[in-house]
């Protein structure tokens, strides 16, 4: 635990020291950021914004993960499907969500839908690609075992491919969780959908730098919290996996 905090503490010290030593202009020192943060935390608008962002984030992530995992398992389990869809996937993946902003606004204005569209579009690919690689990682002997016992396609998916892909899926979810947060904030920032992002936009255009950084810190902290959750889930569901069991032994 102390170890965990030491890294963050180091970062805080660095950010305090850099501006005070005059090494970077315009970066407020930690203390001022934290004061601004405390000010923000006192307002209900701030908490409403955090709530909005988290709602968009969670909804978007759930949709993206569900779609990515289902799609990945299905495409990954059927080699032909994978071969036929590969080019389309690769074509669609690099299209930036930000380029879709007009489309999102066109369809949903500043409502939650806009944010969701962008979040889901960006996070979906992260999960999909991880699942595809995860499914491909299946141990041939394990897969043959399943085949020799004539597992139904569903059982093969459920009991062989899915557990094999699970570690990859976890990485995918962790990647997607951050991307979803990033996109939620970005969408709010650019489109103005309610949430932390639009508060950041206001702070930015008002030249209120400490407040802006305070809000960025909040998104960062949300990321840290999300990761703690993901790690916990990993210990729970991957206890059988080499990566976890190697660390739990001792």
């Amino acid at each position, binding site marked *: 635990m102390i*170890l*965990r*905090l030491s*890294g*963050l503490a180091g970062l805080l010290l660095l950010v305090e020291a850099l501006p005070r030593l005059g090494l*970077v*202009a315009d*970066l407020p020192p930690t203390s001022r950021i934290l004061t601004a943060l405390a000010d923000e935390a006192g307002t209900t608008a701030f908490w409403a914004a955090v709530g909005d962002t988290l709602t968009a984030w969670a909804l978007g992530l759930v949709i993206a993960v569900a779609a990515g995992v289902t799609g990945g398992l299905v495409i990954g389990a059927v080699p032909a499907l994978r*071969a*036929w*869809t590969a*080019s*389309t996937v*690769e*074509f*669609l*993946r*690099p*299209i*930036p969500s*930000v*380029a879709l*902003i*007009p*489309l999102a606004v*066109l369809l949903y204005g500043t409502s939650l839908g806009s944010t969701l569209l962008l979040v889901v579009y960006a996070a979906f*690919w*992260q999960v999909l*690609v991880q699942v595809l*690689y*995860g499914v491909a*990682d*299946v141990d*041939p*002997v394990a*897969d043959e075992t399943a085949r020799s016992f004539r597992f139904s396609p569903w059982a093969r998916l459920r009991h062989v491919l899915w557990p094999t892909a699970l*570690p*990859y899926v*976890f*990485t995918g979810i*962790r*990647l997607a969780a*951050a991307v979803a*947060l*990033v996109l939620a*904030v970005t969408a709010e920032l650019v489109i103005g959908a309610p949430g932390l*992002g639009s508060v950041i936009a206001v702070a930015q255009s008002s030249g209120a730098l400490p407040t802006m950084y305070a809000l*960025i810190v909040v*998104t*960062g*902290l949300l*990321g*840290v919290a*999300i*990761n703690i959750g993901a790690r916990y889930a990993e210990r729970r569901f991957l206890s059988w*996996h*080499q*990566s976890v069991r*190697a*660390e739990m032994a001792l």
Partner: protein
Amino acid sequence: MRRALRLLALPALLFTVWYAASLGSENFYAPPLRTILAAFADTWTPERLRADVLPSLGRLTAGYALAAVLGVALGVAVGANRRLRAAAEPVLEFFRAVPPPVLVPVIMLFAGIGDGMKIIVIVSGCVWPVLLNTVEGVRAVDGVLSDTSRAYGVTGVARLRHLLLPAASPQIVAGLRQALSIAIILMVISEMVAASNGLGFTIVQFQRSFAIPEMWSGIILLGLLGFVLSELFRLAERFLLAWYHGLRDASRS
């Protein structure tokens, strides 16, 4: 031949559907594909490709390469060392959650507004999939293999080279593949600020100046770029992971 068919069949189908469905589109922001394709031909002249796409590709390559090296190096260190991971992970997770658009101004403070800044923005976004996958790949190295290495004194650099990197390579490659499209996305984002040329810059300019067919043609170009790069990547992967694909396919042929 069959491969080409597999590659092109679905995209061709989707484009046909799009073409047909959009023929009569009145919507200003969703023009007919016909218009978009016409704009594509007009817009992406060789001249333009050289002026805007080349610089972008340069930044993309630099940023991607840097992210790959950084992600793998950091990932191996963090993955192989529990204490380091405990200390570093919160900091990394913190930065991972900060959106690149708000990060750009901060990066500008340190890196100025030149290509360096844009490359750093690309790195700042696409290092994560590489890093996370490397960490997980290294953590998951088979226990017996790891014991074998220790027993035979394969330690230090040799352990890295002969055990950790190859063992994690399937997952590292998954991360690199993820990073590829993210690099393209971040190339666009980085060129939205303090840029005067580049593919992202051009697309954003089109968007702001309401040149919607041109904007869509830019998006299509991004997709094509992603597709071409991923094909290159696939070739590289087949070479690098020949052992892995052989091992996985051994039972199927």
